[in-house]
């Protein structure tokens, strides 16, 4: 099974409320990534886990949190959603931190903040 699964596929949230998005893969991949994709923009890397080590991008450092309780699961947490968080969130995994292969992406979680 080479799929990456994301839940929920669609999420509606109120401004100021928390949001938790879940990603799972059963390929025993070392690295899991979260990207934010807005219409007509490039997917933006938010953070990634290499094994148990979390790496957050400098410009999104305080806006997103994540946890990886085991190799298969990775969550993306927004403590207080703002309108600007409305986007598609893409989870991906790769075999190691140097992708000689490719990243495997999930179908995405579409977040709408009202």
């Amino acid at each position, binding site marked *: 099974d080479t799929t990456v699964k994301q839940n929920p*596929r669609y999420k509606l949230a109120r401004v100021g409320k928390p949001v938790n998005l879940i990603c799972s893969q059963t390929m025993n991949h070392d690295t899991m*990534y979260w*990207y934010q994709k807005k219409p*007509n*923009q*490039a*997917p*933006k*890397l938010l953070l*990634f886990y*290499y094994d148990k080590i979390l*790496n957050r991008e400098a410009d999104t450092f305080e806006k997103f949190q994540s946890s990886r309780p085991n190799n298969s699961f990775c969550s993306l947490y927004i403590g207080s959603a703002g309108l600007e968080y409305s986007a*598609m969130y*893409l989870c*991906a995994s790769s075999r190691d*931190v*140097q*992708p*000689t*292969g*490719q*990243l*495997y*992406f*999930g*179908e*995405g979680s*579409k977040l709408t903040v009202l």
Partner: protein
Amino acid sequence: AEKVIQVWSTASRQEGEELTLDCSYETSQVLYHLFWYKHLLSGEMVFLIRQTSSSTAKERSGRYSVVFQKSLKSISLIISALQPDDSGKYFCALWELAEDRGSALGRLHFGAGTQLIVIP
């Protein structure tokens, strides 16, 4: 500054034609990888083809091939014999190592994508 640039935001062709999608990138690394992905309506990003900076081989995968001009920091995706199902958004991506708090970690940077419409 953007690391990956896809100049054309949209493109359209007739079924059966061939299409070239252009991508330029910026990196100071010697070793890096370039990818082309297709973004499906379902949301999934599907891997199409990869080019490693150290390789001189002309990469090909089915109807997909690339033209890699390393000195120009350019990589083009060629899709032959276009089919209506090829319609979608195509993203070019650059993977490179970056120093971060004492460790070298890889990151994948995407371009803004090119929307392809194949007319039956």
